[in-house]
């Protein structure tokens, strides 16, 4: 794999060079510039307010996640019975039918990933302030995984949409979405916004400060 050529010796950041980088198109500008003339994005050397936005979306996402687990996601009406399934209830239902693979996917997408995401974002945001024993590269990887995986939680909302549109067989069987479908979708969207608000360059700044303190 070819690498871009480092300027010289140890890595210099754009900020240390008196420059500000555009995170959208990677062009650099003098620190005084406020808008990238190449792609038109706003330029901020370090988004100092980003942590506030991270936490605001994080809290919103968490608050939406609580009712998402308490209220039913799906309501099934058949000739003989009515049944409401919460997220976890649906997983148990699937597992009891022997569909362990799918039950595992849903459990992972609707419970595992959201919770891991809350923990990971909180950890990253705290580590920027307080430092962490976990290395920068590892934390960068955590951030990338959170950004990549977070969207997949939406799968449960889509499943509900598919079921509710398909299973409309008059009195025989009908499936309607429950309130949790809405709050769960909101929770996923809020946590995606929370992750996007995080300025990953801050993970690396801390290292530079530590390095200088030791030197």
């Amino acid at each position, binding site marked *: *794999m*070819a*690498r*871009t*050529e*480092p*300027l010289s010796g140890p*890595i210099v*950041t*754009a900020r*240390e060079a008196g*420059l500000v*980088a*555009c995170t*959208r*198109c*990677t*062009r*650099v500008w*003098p620190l005084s510039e406020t808008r990238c003339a*190449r*792609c*038109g994005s706003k330029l901020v050397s370090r988004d100092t307010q980003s942590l506030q936005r991270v936490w605001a979306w994080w809290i919103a996402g968490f608050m939406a996640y609580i009712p998402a687990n308490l209220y039913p996601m799906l309501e099934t009406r058949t000739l003989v019975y009515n049944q409401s399934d919460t997220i976890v209830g649906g997983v148990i239902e*699937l597992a009891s039918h022997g*569909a362990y693979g*799918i039950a595992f*996917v*849903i459990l992972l997408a609707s419970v595992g990933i959201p919770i891991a995401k809350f923990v990971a974002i909180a950890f990253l945001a705290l580590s920027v302030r307080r430092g962490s024993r976990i290395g*920068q*590269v590892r934390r*960068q990887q955590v951030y990338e995984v959170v950004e990549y995986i977070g*969207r997949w939680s*939406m*799968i*449960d*909302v*889509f*499943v*509900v*949409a*598919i*079921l*509710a*549109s*398909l*299973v*409309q*067989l008059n009195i*025989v*069987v009908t499936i309607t*979405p429950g309130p949790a*479908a*809405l709050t769960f979708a909101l929770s996923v*969207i809020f946590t*995606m916004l929370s992750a*996007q608000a995080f300025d*990953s*360059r801050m*993970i*690396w700044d801390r290292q530079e400060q530590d390095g200088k303190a030791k030197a």
Partner: protein
Amino acid sequence: MYSDLDSLIACPSCDALYTAKRPAKGERAACARCHTVLIAPRRNAGLRIIAYALASLVLVMGALAFPFLGLSVAGLGNKATLIDAALAFSEGPFVILSLAVVALIVFLPALRLLLTIYVLTPLVLDRPAWPGAKRAFRWAERIKPWSMAEIFVIGCAVALVKLVDLARVELGPAFWMFSVLVVLLVVQDTLMCRWSVWRALNR
């Protein structure tokens, strides 16, 4: 200090500064400390992306028209199209959810394809960029995480399994179209080199 800022490149993830040197076609240049891929030019990438994007658009249109799942139980049957699924949430506050689903699985993927074609066509033809191309490409990049066609495809598979006990279920033509679409989207993504596009837009 640095006379020619245009020849520099800063890693968007960790702010490390490099002099940008276009690697050979097919090779990639990555940030030395956080391993974010910075430059990855491919042979005929523009033309190939446009071709795949056009094919993807046709598939989106097709997928809208045909049912993606069909179900029958006790002599009653139903087939759902994408629009049906998106409009499944039609009561009260669920309308917002309907709009969001339409946006995530149809509107945003289609918009992204159109924007990509609009930006890349003049570049491939060696013409000056069309008006608003920079804004178009910026938006195409921004909506990338919100375009969730591939997640919907897996959702279909999950729904299928959930219903197997309840009724006879079959996958419709739209499901297969969407599956192919997902593959095309992934290929487009690996071909796209943002750095090269931004450079070309400023020639």
